[in-house]
């Protein structure tokens, strides 16, 4: 197997006060596209609408567009709809700790209040003028899926925003 090299190979994890930021590599991402019916046929149960997450069989489905679902986990052979592997297209940054929401609020115009943005929710928005998907997977645990080619700039923007929590 050829050596996999991340867009954040040169980035050093951030461990600050109640905040850690690190790359969370090695995930499989496949996009499934098609009409509602086709998506259901291919994937079984699917998230009802854009912005909704469904977890089953150890896979996470995110409805990213009316006609698109992102599947994170082992790809499913899907004849009934279109599939596009996208694992390399995104770089995943994990943020954990009590101060994550403070930092995220500095990066995009999304309400990160714990009562508003809870675990198992996601949004697609802009960080540093680039598209980003932010997924909350625990009380204060978040993943940012950044565009691979912009990942280093997004990383720098995130860690720069976190400066006040430097240890």
């Amino acid at each position, binding site marked *: 197997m*050829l050596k996999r090299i991340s*867009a954040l*190979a040169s980035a050093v994890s951030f461990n600050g006060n109640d905040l850690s930021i690190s790359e969370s590599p090695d995930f499989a991402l496949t996009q499934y*596209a098609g009409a509602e019916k086709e998506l259901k046929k291919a994937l079984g149960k699917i998230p009802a609408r854009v912005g909704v997450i469904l977890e089953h069989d150890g896979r996470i489905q995110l409805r990213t567009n009316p006609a698109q679902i992102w599947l994170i986990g082992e790809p499913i052979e899907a004849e009934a709809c*279109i599939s596009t592997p996208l694992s390399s*297209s995104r770089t995943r940054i994990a943020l954990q700790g009590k101060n994550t929401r403070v930092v995220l609020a500095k990066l995009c115009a999304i309400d990160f209040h714990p009562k508003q943005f809870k675990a198992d929710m996601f949004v697609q928005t802009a960080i540093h003028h680039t598209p980003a998907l932010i997924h909350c997977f625990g009380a204060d645990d978040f993943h940012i899926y950044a565009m*691979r080619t912009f990942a*280093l*700039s997004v990383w720098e923007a995130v860690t*720069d925003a976190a400066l006040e929590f430097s240890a």
Partner: protein
Amino acid sequence: MTAFKRIDKQSHIDRTKLISFQFDGKMTNGFAGDTLASALLANGKTLLGRSFKYHRPRGIIGAGIEEPNALFTTGIGGRTEPNTISTTAELKSGITAKSQNAWPSLNFDLMAVNQLLSPLFGAGFYYKTFMGPFKKSWMMYEPIIRKAAGLGAALPDLDTARYDMRYMFCDVLVIGSGPAGLAAAVTAARTGARVVLAEQDFEFGGSILSSGSEELERWRKTQIAELEKSSEVRLLKRTTAQGIYDDNLVVLNHTPESHSALMITEQLRARTIIMATGAIERPLVFANNDRPGVMLASALRTYLNRFSVAPKKRAVIVTNNDSAYATAFDLAEHDVAVTVAEHRSALSGDLLAKAAQLGIAIFPSCGISDVVGEKQMRAVRLSGRHAVTIECDVLGMSGGWSPAVHLTSHGGIKPKFDEKIAAFIPGGFAKSHFGAGAVKGTFGLLAAIREGEVAARAALPECKKIKELDLPAIREDRKYSIQPIWNAAEKANEKYAFVDFQNDVTVKDIRGAHQEGYLSVEHLKRYTTLGMGTDQGKTSNINALAMMADLRGLAMSQAGTTTFRPPYSPITVGAIAGRTVAAHFRPKRLSPLHDWHVNNGATFIEAGLWMRAWYYNWAGNTPEAAYIKEMELVRQNVGIADVSTLGKIDVQGPDAAEFLNRVYVNGFAKLPVGRARYGVMLNDDGVVLDDGTTSRINDTQFYMTTTTAQAGEVMSWLEYLLQMHWTDLDVHVTSLTDQWGGMAVSGPNSRRALQLAFPEIDITNEALPYLGVMDFKFEGVGVRVLRLSFSGELAYEVHCSADYTTALWEHILNAAAPLGIKPYGLEALASLRIEKGHVAGADLDHRNTLDDLGLGKMAGKDKAYIGKELRFREDCQAPERWSLVGIECMEDGAKLRGGAILFAATDEIKGHGRGYITSVTWSTELNKYIALALYNGGMKHEGKEIICAFPLKNENVKARIVSPHFIDKQGERLHA
């Protein structure tokens, strides 16, 4: 001579914390809780600045954000900022403050000579002179005028401060923490809603802080304590609400107490907004009302009650309304001898009684005729029946109060005039906006508290059952009474009667503007510069508008106000820019091979947001030297270049072929599987949008490539067509630009190189002919080889997923090392394509038609495609249009340059020429400079001699029009 002293009185300063600071080079002391202004007053400093135009001596006028005069260049630890408002600047240890706009010193300012010329310098005088003697004479006067203008100096050194930015949300934003704001915030907080309380001061409390009342102080503390206990409340001191933008975006400018950032700009989306922004006291306008020592009456009270700074012995108060008596009484109670000049003829009994009790003399029906003293006032002369001169340390003036309606009108609601209080009040409130207290013209304290509570209940109607607020145990509010006095200057003294203190606009100037017909409030402002200072007319606008209304015989309601614009108070540009500056200004887009390039001697160049490898140091240390070696490598052997930046789009679905067939001018419906085709797409207007190569992976799947620059545009365009117009087509598009990396392996030895890299794969000419596409797995990774050539040589593009691109690149470099393969950069890539005559970014400039680029024949005659109809507009088909040609240099030692303008050999070298050079290179094959150009009539002129004019360098170079395909016209190399 000192006019003020610090007195022994309980207040909001903390005498246990001494703070040293520097003013104009001298060390001075104050206390924690002081502002810079209060500390300076306590030290007896009253001459603090010079005015903008006449350089008149000026002192502090106010005690808040409205201050027009006392601005300094301040700093801590070497970092300084010009034009800091001293009346709001919290005193901090080590702060340095310098007076501005005075030379050589505050005390002796030579520019004060301007005062003598003031009869000349009336409003708008500069529009009437400095025109001669020559046409461009202004260029002679301008530098002198410029030098005289300006307040502080900009500082060219790098700003070391950090500015932060955050995006927040809340249910209720309360702006202002005076009695109304506190009441609103506490009421809202009791509902459990998300509340933000924003206060520009470094203490909550607003007017309560200046009241000197123990009961109010107790009430204030109780409210703050309750707010501090509420988990959903954010309390923001030192926070100015600068503006309200569409859909309740409020921009807050917050100076944190301890943070890595000097300032935080908060973009707050508030569901509802309660404005409790209070009111600003107006000066009265009379002769020499700008002398140091003449202050707003309320400011005297603030300095007394909040900062324990009192006039030394004697104060005169001049007023047209009741509010100034609070100041008079408080001063008298602290042993200051007070005299009141009262414009009104009658006064209510309770005020008279209290004044008598405190020994205050009141002169009714009179104002101030003049102020004596220049750098510090010494006495006032009363006007009217009691024309006496009274010696005093300070003069407190009150012309009434102007509600701070600014934020209420940012959304476009114009304020309206309220005759009862002689002031503008909000013309209404937008949906989800509420007001409480003085901003609505409600000047009573208990009334303000009640309004605050009502506003909060209205903002949060879903929570009705909350406990009512406790009111402070104070007397019921007095009724406010005022008799408007807009101009109290005697006619002869109007030129010394200041309306706008900072910009030196006098009553005479307003009269002048009126005489000359600058009548509308905007003309008045623009002609006289009234209200255009750093204070944006917070103290001056209303007086001026009223004077103009008077002169025009209009009611105030007819005259209107100038438009209130954000920011509410000046905010540094850096604070709004936040973190997204300098190296972080815009994201850098990096190829998956970026680190490899960094580690292997590449020099980079910006291409849009991308950082691209420009050239490699193996070939040379300048782009000029390196690209030629890199070109030679490709022409003679084999090179490898990073093409990951190409836009790549996955086009899938049963109708994918039909879709592409519509989008491209040339046919894609019948493209066989495993084959690639060059395609061009047009906009609706028939102008070229983009070009690229698209290959068919299987029946229903295509792999599209676009130019680097247009990738985003093309993607959005395809989505637009599919989602909004051609919804009957079953096609999905997904960007693969980030998913796939790519490299071009080019040169006569490229096949050998790939054979060395992939010995198991058959890539003979038969198995993979020109424009063939092949997918295979290599070491578990999917690889796509496309036989395409940008350089004109036998060449391949090798694509694979971005995670493995570097490994694959290194593998090919290692495997083909025996051949001498090396990387080549963007400069060589661009040069090679010029030799081949491939158009690219520099030639495609959104103005070209298909025919301009010599590609007209590509378009299907019988086939429909986007842009077909408008492509055939008259001028788009004109024979004299500029179209693509090749050019070769005919002069030894001369250089062709991009941007040169082309002329026929016999033309006069002037005008717009017949075309221009779009891209240039040295041709290693032809040993001369060659170029691509657009030329009037295009290839019709093949063989003709032309002149490439570059007057910017005084060059005219002879050249010849040739085919843009400089090398391998038959394409033998491509098909080899």
